[in-house]
């Protein structure tokens, strides 16, 4: 493997030089671009926070992308190396450890046609029936590997067809995925409507997976299809974007091998004008987990992605209790108002003030027994499962988030951001356990930046979370000093409300940025927690040690 790789690199190097030589005589001889990142952590044991050391002392995740493109043709690959995988990334049985080129592709596009061979990412509509993506920070990469054709039938009508297997760490999942998607942009199709203030897009997707199993107990469907239809209507400042998805019988580990079909509905509406944005969203999901291996779990082999509609919190403390879509049944709603108080008013001040209010809530759905002898919970494998009415809302609260944010610029030098968040987090449902109960948390955040004349700045953050549940209350203080190309941070996250032992999680670090390159070094402690991005979450174990990250785009 190593030999082949070295050979490959040498060839690549030679190729580039020959291209360079060509460039002297002729333009448009193609280009190579790429990026790489390496994250390394040296682990130190700290029993007080439950952090462990590792036998290797240090673990390293790294990857590099290379893309060659020349007019209508482009190709690329990603080299990845996990020696060994950083703690907290999906790596059951060491499945993610190793080095290799799991991602390579070539693409040809001309006029109305685009053909991809090898690995690719794709999203149909909002992703309810198909979304293939990567999220390196989460260790998610469900890249497809196969063939894809995109074709523009007429102006405004786009078709996509694909057939592929899905990446499963260094291998492929057992299922074959076939997908078709069509979108029609009405205003593009009919020239007369091009300038209309009413805009209309419609689309539909069909995805089918094949997985054969000689299951001794159940008559399993080898082919499972899911389909969806979507519509986008925009009139002046109003916008409605909706998608409905249906999945045929798909017994799986996710739904405990029940044969009921699944459904999902997503509606986003908004109103926007200068200085004001209002968003209202709702969704309803029942039995919509869809994977290319029915026995897969956690972040593995998802074909679709059911988006959350709750706010994605980035400040450390509110991100302690993140929401994740419950594919086995969930109703959710969101209302968000974003407003800019105009300049030169009492509250707006010289620069105007941004305020936003966001409310979201998620519940279970109502499920009823199919007959007297079959309980809804625990799910009865090998049956239809349960009945449910479309868009029914259950009594059990999964999550609630009320948050309010004010960003104000006081002068050229002083910027500030104030937030208040109130969360109700159903710990049992969202962490897949029982007996813990809800967490109620009030969080206040003050974020101030002072800019000096010479482009340097001092940024401070104070966050406080009050809660009686889980690990109790926390307070966090952070100071960051930056000057062009450099930053230095110190922070301490103090779990002063912990009934067992009050713990400090401190960290110091600095970084250097130069163009497309960034180097970061820090030492500190990280608490055990849950990290969620894009509908999937992973447990992050507590750690203590030195962290180095280098990334560059070239």
């Amino acid at each position: 493997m190593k030999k082949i790789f070295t050979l490959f690199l040498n060839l690549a190097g030679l190729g580039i030089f020959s291209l360079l030589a060509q460039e002297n005589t002729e333009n448009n001889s193609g280009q190579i671009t790429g990026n790489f990142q390496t994250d390394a952590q040296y682990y130190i044991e700290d029993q007080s926070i439950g952090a462990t050391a590792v036998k290797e002392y240090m673990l390293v995740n790294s990857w590099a992308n290379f893309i060659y493109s020349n007019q209508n043709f482009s190709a690329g690959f990603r080299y990845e190396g996990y020696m060994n995988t950083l703690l907290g990334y999906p790596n059951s049985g060491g499945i993610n450890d190793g080095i290799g080129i799991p991602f390579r592709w070539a693409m040809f596009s001309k006029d109305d046609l685009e053909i991809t061979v090898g690995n690719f990412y794709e999203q149909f509509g909002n992703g309810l029936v198909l979304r293939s993506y990567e999220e390196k920070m989460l260790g998610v990469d469900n890249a497809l590997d196969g063939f894809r054709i995109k074709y523009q039938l007429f102006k405004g009508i786009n078709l996509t067809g694909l057939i592929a297997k899905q990446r499963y760490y260094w291998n492929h999942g057992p299922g074959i995925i076939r997908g078709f998607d069509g979108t029609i942009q009405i205003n593009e199709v009919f020239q007369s409507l091009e300038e209309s203030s009413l805009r209309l897009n419609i689309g539909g997707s069909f995805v089918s997976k094949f997985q054969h199993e000689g299951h001794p107990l159940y008559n399993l469907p080898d082919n499972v299809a899911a389909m969806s239809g979507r519509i986008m209507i925009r009139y002046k400042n109003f916008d409605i974007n909706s998608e409905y998805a249906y999945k045929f019988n798909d017994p799986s580990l996710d739904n405990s091998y029940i044969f009921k079909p699944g459904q999902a509905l997503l509606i986003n509406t908004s109103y926007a004008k200068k200085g004001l944005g209002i968003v209202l969203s709702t969704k309803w999901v029942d039995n919509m987990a869809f994977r290319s291996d029915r026995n897969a779990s956690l972040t593995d082999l998802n074909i679709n992605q059911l988006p959350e509609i709750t706010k994605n919190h980035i400040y450390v403390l509110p991100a302690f209790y993140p929401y994740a879509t419950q594919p086995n049944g969930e109703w959710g709603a969101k209302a968000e108002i974003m407003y800019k108080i105009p300049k030169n008013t009492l509250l707006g001040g010289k620069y105007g003030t941004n305020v936003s209010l966001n409310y979201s809530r998620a519940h279970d759905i109502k499920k009823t027994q199919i007959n007297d002898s079959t309980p809804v919970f625990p799910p009865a494998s090998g049956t239809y499962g349960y009945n449910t009415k479309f868009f029914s809302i259950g009594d059990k609260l999964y999550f609630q988030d009320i948050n309010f944010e004010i960003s104000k610029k006081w002068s050229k030098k002083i910027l500030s951001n104030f937030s208040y968040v109130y969360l109700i987090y159903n710990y049992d449902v969202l962490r897949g356990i029982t007996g813990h109960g809800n967490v109620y948390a009030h969080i206040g955040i003050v974020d101030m930046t002072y800019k000096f004349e010479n482009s340097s700045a001092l940024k401070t953050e104070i966050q406080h979370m009050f809660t009686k549940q889980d690990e109790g209350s926390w307070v966090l203080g952070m100071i960051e000093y930056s000057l062009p190309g450099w930053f230095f941070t110190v922070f301490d996250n103090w779990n002063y409300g912990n009934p067992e032992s009050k713990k400090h999680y401190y960290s110091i670090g600095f970084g250097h940025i130069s163009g497309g390159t960034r180097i970061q070094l820090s030492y500190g402690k990280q608490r055990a927690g849950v990290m969620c991005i894009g509908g999937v979450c992973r447990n992050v174990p507590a750690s203590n040690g030195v962290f180095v990250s280098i990334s560059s785009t070239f």
Partner: protein
Amino acid sequence: MKYIKFAVISFLLGMFATSCDIIEEPYTKEGVFVWHGRKILIYDFTGHKCGNCPRAHETINSLINIYDEAVIPIAIHCTAFARVTGSDSTQPYYYDFRTDIGDYLGGRMTEPGYYGELTLPIGLVNNLAKEKLLSHTAWPTEVAKFISSFPEYLIEIQPEYSNENDIVKADIKVKTSVTNSRKIALTVFIIEEHIINWQTDYNKTPKDIPNYEHNHVLRAGFNGAWGEVIKNNTNVTVLGDEYTKSYSITKGNDWKIQNCFIVAFVYDVDTYEVLQAEMIKVQ
């Protein structure tokens, strides 16, 4: 160009035409199978504090319902889910199900074992290779793959237990039934059925079950986690060739010997495939 357009559109519509199988009731089928005597080994990595692990135990029970003695499960308590609260037997989860072999294979607390960081429940069906770890819903299909094949070996176990010195003895005879030139190893464990103790079950309210029945619990190994190589791949074995081994261990204080079984299995050292397994009651 016209042909290309035609081909492209046919390809796209082909994706559309791919079928979907709609299953009508009954969803279940009779577990009918042809059997030539091959027995299937299952490692069930589990823990008494693991609230989803009873799902795997249920899968094993449904397999025993169909295949009866043809499946030989071994419950291996490991990882932080097997931690104990202390030695006070009035407290929940005081009982220590862990073994040296379980710690080595599955890991103890946060220290990973041979199989790396495990997310429980997870298991191995008739193959001990790292990359063959499977979630429990995949076990039935995996058992079905092996169950109807001919066993390459037959195993006879002659158990012996002496009350006087608490020594459990196992005389094992491995007989070749299909000529082959594999490198094989013999592993011998002792397991115990019907241990009544605490278990977490997220499908139950309350989740802590004081009188859960723990079955097929690994107690100890006679010859380590990987057993002993009894034949190398440099020589061929033919029908009727026999290998005999004798092992003994001392019974643990808390084992009920009347519920104990000896499990012996042979596996291919190169492919990790388990070729045959056998189980017999100690007394």
